[in-house]
């Protein structure tokens, strides 16, 4: 259990920069999830922390101690691989005890700790089996068990659930959360699945193209995303985005007019984000946007309505209970202004209250102003 | 034998070479009868306790190249067993050392002049590079039963008669007449037979030009005539076509053919004949054989065969020339031939005349008297091995119909004269 600090860490493979100046703190006992689309560098980030990849720039501190040049084995971390990476030629017991054996622990101590970990994960009956004789879920447990046995300061998980089927994944997710609570250890967890991120994390780190997008608690990311990417990535179904422009505090587009927003700027490229669950379907003629329905998916407790606004923007709305809608039916939506998030042309969040959307920073050209005036 | 070598092996593995206080020399012997030689060497060691001789052996086909490579790089065995025609080329390449001083200081059984084929061992400057050891020649061996079955009462004495006899036997008995290996590899017999044919008719491939050099002693037409003569034996001429793929006078198709009575006439050296006789006797259990050897047919110049054999040379790199020479002295001594090497004919005229070869071998003894040395063939420009190889290749190409006799002969002639001209 310890703290980890990344200070302007960067990594490149040859000429390709994979991580750019990542700085963050991970405190003792936190469950941190690194999330992002594939190729965003999240696995590389985990592997630099593990010591499997040397870093190109910046520094990495473990409990305040720089570990840039400390080899993986000496960092006191344990890792659970996506492929589980169990040694096929060793039994479950040997797999779990291997690190201790390498460290030269006495046999009795190895047995004790392996047994303890096996008990936590209910692996005792499997100890003498070989990995090929285990199911996917069991292998997964063994991989975790192997990490537990080492009693590491930090657990690293590299997409550990991606090889499991959906039902099992949900189950293990809960168990992992439980495990974290019991062990109280720091855990760093990489996934591309935002549901896993939301359910597991104390703190989520969103990465895209090697850049840190936002760090924060799941609720922060959900409610107060810093940019379009985070807003779109977190939450399911995805947030709706409606392009348009902002003029004197009012959002204008062919399909939607809403406001006022407490933002002192005129801007041609502005996007409004609204979560599907914040949209409500209202009586025809009473809404502020009209939706042409493509399909309605009934999920039991709710129905997801997919459709297009008059400017062809794809929209998903959530309606409670069962709602029968024909394709091409037209319905009216209420998109409440107070739930709308504004993003500027760079995709950055424009927050109404703190004045982050200052005109100077975001001044449209004269030509653009003309367009704004006319839109 | 095995036990002995095994123990030597173990001893040398365990002790290395440190224990040897005596002089060690290596004798490379390349023929059969290894047991005979090893027994003789043991006797030599007993008589010379200060000398330890190791006998090593490599296949005869590889012997020449291997020794040259080793000696020219500064290694190789001390005493080496080589063909009659190699000493000059090896001496001139500085692989062998001149023996003149050793011979004049220590002497050799009945004097060096008593040895046959002196010209093959002495360079123009007078250096003697090897001592002739054993001698032999090739001649024809016959199955007398098959001959009489075909109504032939005498061994053919002239080349056309031989061809006639072969054809007759084949027609009369359906068996092979004169079956010889007509293959193209360098170990075939066509080289010997062609040269015998040419010599008997007064030609020679290479002759002295009288001015210290060498020249061709034959015309392409005469070469072609020889090619055609031997080609006439193929098929209905009595030599089965399958012998085109046979490249050795000791090939089973020939030796077994003779033994089983499927072939009437063969061409071979004494060692092969002897082993053939042994096999026949052990298979039939009878001492009597239907075989006889007779001299090769004559042409305008008589029936001439080559005086072949093996000689002993001393490596120019040896650190123990005196000891090596003592081994050579011993191996050429009368006692050695009387007691040990009874299957080979000695290369000394005095010893040769005193040996009784038995009735079947009579032809060889007679033929040996009509043998000639290779003489001018053994010059530095035309290694015999290479001429031998070219002969087989050219004759083979003609035989299988790739090219005509004239073209094959011309190619051959150009190759050899090209070598001489270099």
């Amino acid at each position, binding site marked *: 259990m310890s703290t980890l600090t990344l200070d302007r860490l960067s990594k490149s493979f040859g000429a390709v920069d994979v991580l750019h100046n990542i700085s963050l703190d991970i405190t003792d006992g936190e469950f941190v999830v690194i999330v992002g689309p594939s190729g965003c560098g999240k696995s590389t980030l985990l592997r630099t922390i593990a010591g499997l990849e040397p870093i190109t720039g910046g520094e990495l501190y473990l409990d305040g101690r720089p570990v840039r040049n400390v080899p993986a084995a000496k960092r006191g971390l344990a890792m659970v691989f996506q492929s589980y990476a169990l040694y096929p030629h060793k039994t479950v017991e040997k797999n779990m005890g291997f690190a201790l054996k390498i460290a030269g622990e006495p046999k009795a101590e190895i047995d004790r700790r392996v047994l303890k970990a096996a008990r936590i994960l209910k692996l005792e009956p499997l100890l003498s089996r070989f990995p090929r004789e285990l199911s996917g879920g069991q292998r997964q447990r063994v991989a975790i068990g192997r990490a537990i046995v080492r009693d590491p300061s930090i657990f690293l998980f590299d997409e550990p659930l991606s090889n499991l089927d959906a039902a099992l994944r949900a189950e293990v997710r809960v168990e992992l959360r439980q495990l974290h609570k019991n062990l109280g250890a720091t855990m760093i967890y990489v996934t591309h699945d935002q549901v896993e991120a939301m359910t597991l994390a104390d703190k989520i780190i969103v990465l895209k193209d090697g850049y840190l997008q936002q760090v924060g608690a799941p609720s922060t990311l959900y409610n107060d995303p810093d940019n379009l990417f985070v807003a779109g990535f977190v939450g399911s179904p995805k947030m709706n985005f409606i392009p348009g422009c902002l003029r004197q505090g009012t959002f204008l587009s062919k399909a939607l007019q809403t406001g006022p927003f407490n933002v002192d700027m005129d801007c041609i490229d502005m996007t409004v984000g609204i979560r599907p669950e914040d949209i409500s379907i209202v009586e025809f003629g009473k809404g502020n946007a009209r939706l042409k329905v493509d399909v309605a998916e009934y999920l039991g407790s709710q129905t997801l309505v997919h459709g297009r606004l008059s400017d062809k923007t794809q929209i998903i709305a959530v309606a409670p209970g069962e709602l029968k809608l024909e394709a091409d039916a037209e319905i009216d939506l209420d998109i409440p202004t107070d739930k709308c998030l504004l993003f500027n042309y760079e995709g950055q969040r424009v927050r109404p209250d703190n004045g982050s959307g200052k005109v100077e920073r975001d001044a449209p050209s004269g030509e653009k102003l003309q367009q704004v005036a006319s839109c | 034998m095995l036990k002995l070598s095994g123990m030597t092996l173990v001893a040398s593995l365990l002790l290395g070479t440190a224990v040897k206080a005596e002089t060690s020399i290596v004798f490379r012997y390349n023929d059969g009868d290894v047991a005979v030689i090893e027994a003789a060497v043991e006797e030599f060691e007993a008589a010379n306790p200060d000398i330890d001789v190791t006998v090593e052996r490599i296949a005869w086909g590889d012997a020449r190249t291997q020794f040259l490579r080793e000696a*020219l790089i500064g290694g190789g065995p001390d005493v080496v067993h080589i063909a009659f025609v190699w000493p000059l080329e090896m001496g001139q390449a500085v692989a062998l050392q001149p023996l003149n001083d050793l011979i004049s200081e220590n002497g050799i059984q009945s004097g060096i002049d008593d040895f046959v084929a002196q010209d093959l061992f002495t360079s123009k400057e007078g250096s003697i590079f090897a001592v002739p050891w054993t001698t032999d020649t090739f001649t024809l061996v016959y199955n007398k039963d098959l001959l009489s079955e075909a109504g032939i009462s005498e061994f053919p004495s002239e080349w056309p008669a031989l061809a006639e006899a072969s054809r007759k036997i084949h027609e009369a008995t359906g068996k092979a007449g004169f079956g010889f290996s007509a*293959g193209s590899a360098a170990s075939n017999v066509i080289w010997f037979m062609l040269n015998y044919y040419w010599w008997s008719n007064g030609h020679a491939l290479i002759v002295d030009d009288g001015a210290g050099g060498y020249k061709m002693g034959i015309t392409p037409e005469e070469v072609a005539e020889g090619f055609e003569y031997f080609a006439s034996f193929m098929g209905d001429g009595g030599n089965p076509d399958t012998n085109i793929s*046979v490249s050795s006078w000791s090939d089973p198709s020939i030796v077994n053919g003779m033994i089983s009575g499927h072939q009437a006439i063969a061409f071979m050296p004494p060692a092969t004949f002897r082993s053939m006789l042994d096999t026949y006797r052990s298979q039939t259990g009878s001492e009597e054989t239907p075989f006889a050897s007779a001299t090769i047919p004559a042409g305008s110049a008589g029936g001439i065969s080559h005086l072949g054999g093996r000689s002993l040379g001393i490596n120019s790199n040896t650190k123990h020339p005196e000891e090596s020479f003592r081994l050579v002295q011993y191996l050429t001594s009368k006692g050695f031939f009387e007691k040990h090497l009874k299957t080979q004919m000695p290369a000394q005229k005095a010893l040769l005349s005193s040996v009784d070869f038995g009735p079947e071998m009579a032809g060889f003894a007679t033929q040996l008297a009509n043998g000639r040395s290779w003489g001018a063939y053994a010059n530095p420009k035309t290694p015999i091995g290479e001429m031998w*190889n070219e002969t087989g290749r050219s004759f083979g190409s003609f035989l299988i119909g790739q090219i005509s006799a004239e073209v094959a002969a011309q190619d051959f002639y150009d190759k050899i004269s090209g070598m001489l001209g270099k």
Partner: protein
Amino acid sequence: MISFERQHLGFILAMLVPAFLLLALFYIWPATFNLWNSFTDLTLLSMRQGGNFVGIQNYVDLIRDSGFKTVIWNTAFWLAFVSTLIRLLLGLGLALLIHSEPVRRAGLRTIARMAILLPWATPPIVAVVVWRQFFDGQGLFNQIFLDLGIISEPVAFLGNQATVWPALLMIITWNTLPVVTLTFLAALQTLPKDLFEAAEMDGAGTWRKFVDVTLPHLAPTMVVMGLLLVIWTFNNFVYVWLATGAGPGTFTNVLATEVFMKGFISFELGYSSAVGMIMVAIMLVFGAFYFHFVASRNFKEIM
């Protein structure tokens, strides 16, 4: 794959240096020596004195030599092309045969797989000895053919223009077929079953399934195997030399035997080296081809 970092250098060197040092000693120094020799008139007999520099004379000589064209033809056509083609086809046929349902039901599959190993375990020198006996005038083939009345006179299989190459190829094929067959067998075992089922659903018959499913699946293996066979046979001197000694005449002379004959029988080391360098040059071209199309594809992960 671990990217190159200075901290790994020591380990990487420790892994590579011993092997590459040995290989350099074994290949590069002798090859250089050979290259130099090819520009001299060195013979074995003049080794003490050393050869004279003759420039590209040896290369000019060998290009002018009429026999050299035959050598190139024999090597390229018979050894490289025909022998490879035969082995690919026979190897494929045999693999299909062993893999086939009737053979499995007849309980022959295991026996066949054992039988395949027999030629493989036989050293080439032994293989040649046996087959020469079979091809002999009184050998097995002549006896069988005579008894069957196919021929009336014994045939010199290894001494006849018409039969010598087929006979040689038979020896080579017998001795080296196992590798080809086993490779195809292994590839057949990885045939995706569902593809067959899909083809069956599409109404494909046995022949169509073979052409549309089996063959495409085996195609990459065939390419790799074909290239390897060409390489192995091209350099192999044992079969031709021991079976026919490049004869009859020089009818079966190939590059490798030409190098051997010039170097070890005629002692013309310079000329022999030149022929050897021609071989190296051909192999370099072939090697580049092989590397580009096979090795670097097989191992793109490590490149």
